[in-house]
């Protein structure tokens, strides 16, 4: 993953525009998009194979949210802990769980539009908190 992102940047340096964001967050975004793509392909492939012995019933949303939160660094947990519950759950399931917004809505028993607006307000609140704490990426 790391190799693919770096060699892609090497081959296509014009795809990163420093005017529109810092390199670190751009690289993380590229890696995340690739990882989600692979995870979704993997899931789609497995759904076709009903006899896959590694298939387990999916965990509950609460368990999944808690496990993603626990995987964060202490700073990350503190930052995301300051968000409203709906914002926190939407970001943990969508970004860290790799779920689409419609899957996230189903897991949370809410509407897809609500999930997207929670992701947006959550990200804006995170950014505001990071700026006031002087966090840069």
């Amino acid at each position, binding site marked *: *993953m*790391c*190799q*693919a992102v*770096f*060699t892609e*940047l*090497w*081959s*296509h*340096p*014009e795809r990163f*525009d420093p005017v529109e*964001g*810092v*390199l*670190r*967050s751009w690289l*993380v*975004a*590229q*890696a*995340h*998009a*690739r*990882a*989600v793509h*692979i*995870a979704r392909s993997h899931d789609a492939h497995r759904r076709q194979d009903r006899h896959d012995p*590694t298939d*387990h019933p*999916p*965990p509950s949303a609460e*368990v999944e949210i*808690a*496990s*993603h939160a*626990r*995987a*964060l*660094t202490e700073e*990350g947990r503190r930052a*995301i802990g300051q968000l409203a519950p709906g914002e926190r759950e939407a970001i943990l399931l*969508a*970004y*860290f*769980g790799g*779920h*689409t*917004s419609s899957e996230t809505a189903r897991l949370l028993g809410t509407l897809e539009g609500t*999930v997207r607006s929670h*992701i*947006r307000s959550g*990200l*804006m609140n*995170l*950014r505001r908190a990071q700026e006031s704490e002087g*966090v*840069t*990426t």
Partner: protein
Amino acid sequence: MTHIGPVSDHPLDNLAAHATDALDPAEQQAVDDHLAHCSACRAELADHREALAALAPAEAPPTEVWQHITAAIGAPGLPDPHTGASGMAVHDHAPSSSPVDEGRGGVDYTVAPVSSLAGAEAARARARRPSPLRWAAAVVVAASAAGALGFALGNSSDDADIGSLAQRALEEPDAVLATLADGEGQPVARVVADEDGAFMLLEALQDLPEGRAYQLWSVGGPEPVSLGMLGRDGTNTVAFRLPPTITELAISVAPTSGDGTPSGVFRAYGSVLQ
């Protein structure tokens, strides 16, 4: 001056969902189409990505990843930004049992879990779906490597000395590594190199209109690979790094942001002297 229309014109919620990769492909394409002509939304996307990147833990990827990267770009001697050792030196000391796939990409490294998850349910959750974050984390510390990795092409406007460095390189014997000619065989550009680096000297290309730029390609392999943008000035000098694996170069005309694959007829073409 960017015109920012009413809020309702911008897909703000979908933009946030896009930042978390939570849209389905069709919706993602719609947001990408909007982003192509909306700088306000590109700026907001960059802000969202910064917020998310700040949550990502910083972890160093395994040393082998750096070796794969430097091998893939044809610059095996670049020092590892973490250890300071060159890729070659580390490679020499790598245990012989470590499988090193020198072939195409597709080797995925999962980094150490960012934390141990307690409970069988949570462990199953992790086993069921590889955490995208754990893969994404591998690039976080490696992002600092970008300074060492550099870009294939520098920006000539960043360094007023590039022209004089290139002229000095020209005085060295055997400094010219390639001469690129246009469709009629007339030389229009040269590549020179010395210990300061490699330079692309555009010497007789036409200046391009606003919004267009020359793009440099490596065309010796199975598919053209972009080496970066050369600007729209037909007599420009640009510093770049020339990996030893590159054997043939070509220059196309592209939009300022560059093409993914070359379009139109190459304006110049030449082989690199080995």
